[in-house]
């Protein structure tokens, strides 16, 4: 038996919707955010519309039941029911969308806000655009010394950072569970691998309180490390972060 076109379209939409839920929420165990799913479904619907209506016969078949519903005198009862139910559903949807809930408001943060041009750390003004890791050069020039510096950074990390960011740098330290926002996972491809070393220096030195307004509302508990660590220690720990995770700091020169 041939399934009517309209039903086909609806089935495809429901199938894709359930597919997303099944794949993300069940199989991958990582829920798909409702905001993303809504947009996905909007464009999947647009795609389904395109495929089902690009040729004339198919379109006629698709809209035939709708046309019949609206125009045919024999379907008066169903029509009246539909004409009541659809607005009610739309109204209910709007109501539940807009009704204030007891949940805390959704927090939106730029995880990596644009840095300022210059910052004031250790009592001096530093130009972030030109700032470079003073130890990075040893990677090529003096590998022995570089190793030492990385080891120094590791020590700093274990003494200060791992409580939150974890001993595997995966953001799952002993205290991580108590924090919101959760500590960054440096193993993730979207964190330090996307950033320059000067950016890390800025974030470490000025901590949560140093974040610009566009990253707000931010209640990051990252300490202002310039009060606890020396400049050299921060640069060493940055070396360690990249070394341990095997990532490279972002740079715009292709000879990197």
């Amino acid at each position, binding site marked *: 038996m041939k399934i009517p076109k309209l039903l086909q379209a609806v089935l495809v939409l429901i199938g894709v919707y359930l597919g997303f839920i099944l794949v993300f929420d069940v199989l991958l165990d990582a829920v798909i955010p409702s*905001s993303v799913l809504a*947009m996905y479904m909007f464009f999947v619907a647009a795609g389904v519309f395109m495929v089902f209506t690009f040729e004339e016969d198919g379109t006629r078949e698709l809209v035939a039941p709708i046309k019949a519903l609206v125009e045919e005198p024999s379907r008066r009862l169903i029509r009246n029911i539909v004409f009541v139910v659809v607005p009610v559903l739309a109204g209910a949807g709007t109501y539940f969308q807009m009704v204030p809930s007891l949940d805390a408001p959704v927090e*939106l943060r*730029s995880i990596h806000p644009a840095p300022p*041009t210059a910052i*004031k750390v250790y009592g001096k003004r530093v130009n972030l655009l030109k700032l470079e890791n003073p130890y990075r050069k040893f990677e090529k020039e003096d590998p022995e010394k570089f190793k030492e510096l990385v080891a120094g950074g590791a020590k700093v990390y274990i003494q200060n950072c791992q409580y939150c960011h974890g001993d595997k740098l995966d953001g799952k330290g002993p205290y991580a569970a108590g924090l919101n926002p959760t500590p960054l996972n440096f193993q993730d491809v979207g964190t330090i691998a996307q950033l320059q070393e000067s950016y890390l220096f800025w974030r470490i030195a000025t901590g949560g309180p140093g974040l610009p*307004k*566009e990253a707000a509302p931010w209640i990051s508990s990252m300490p202002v490390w310039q009060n606890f660590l020396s400049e050299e220690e921060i640069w060493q720990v940055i070396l360690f972060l990249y070394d341990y995770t095997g990532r490279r700091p972002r740079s715009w020169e292709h000879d990197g």
Partner: protein
Amino acid sequence: MRQFLMVVAFTLLTVGLFAGYSNFGIPQIEPAQPPKQEKIDLGAMTMDKFIALGEKIFNGKGTCTLCHNNLGRAPMLGGTAGLVPKRLVDPRYKGEATNVEEYLIESFVKPSAFVVAGFGKKGTNDTVSPMPDVSAGSIRLNDAEIKAVVAYLQDSGGAEVTVKIPTDAPEQTEQTEGEPRAPFETPEQAIAELGCGACHKVATEEGEVGPDLTKIGGLRDKAYLRQAILDPNADITEGFEKDQMPPDYGAQMYAQELEMMVDYLAGLK
């Protein structure tokens, strides 16, 4: 016509969808306001530092202590900030200030708005103040410097410091430090820059604290004048007080400037 209206409706719907998505579909992050202008270091200044700056100007560039000292030339300013509310309702008050900060700023630039009894210019029955406008003439404090002094006066007077650290005016006191200044070209320039006119009647200035210098060349010789600048207390003209003139002009002036001034003064007959 029907097609036309449908096209219009379709266009509006499309634009509406885009606008709706931009307004409600994505988070509205309010970007930070533009940063305070960076080249002025005042923005990074704490209130304590600002008050300290005010104190420095009060004792230095502002030449305030020439008169506002314990010799009775002008009122002491220690408690002025606390007295302002009373003065604002005093019938003799002619200014427009409504609070302490405004009153103090006004008193710097329009000193005659309120003259403390007994400190007016002679013969004016305390309606005209002998104090110069500090934003003009030889003292020439800028807005930021005036505010710093106000902050200092509010702070030392025990009043609440209401002054906001300005961010939109260049800060000049800091700039002149460290590097040697260019020598003065003319005696008039030197008089203006060194602030002689705050006390002396000389050139176009009308100071009354120190001796009138307009005809000094006829009374004193060059050696005396040189000594009077380098060591003001060596000889005090009758009717004037000791310790009024700052003793450090010798250090402030270049040798050639000193000679230029001596020649100039000796020439005033």
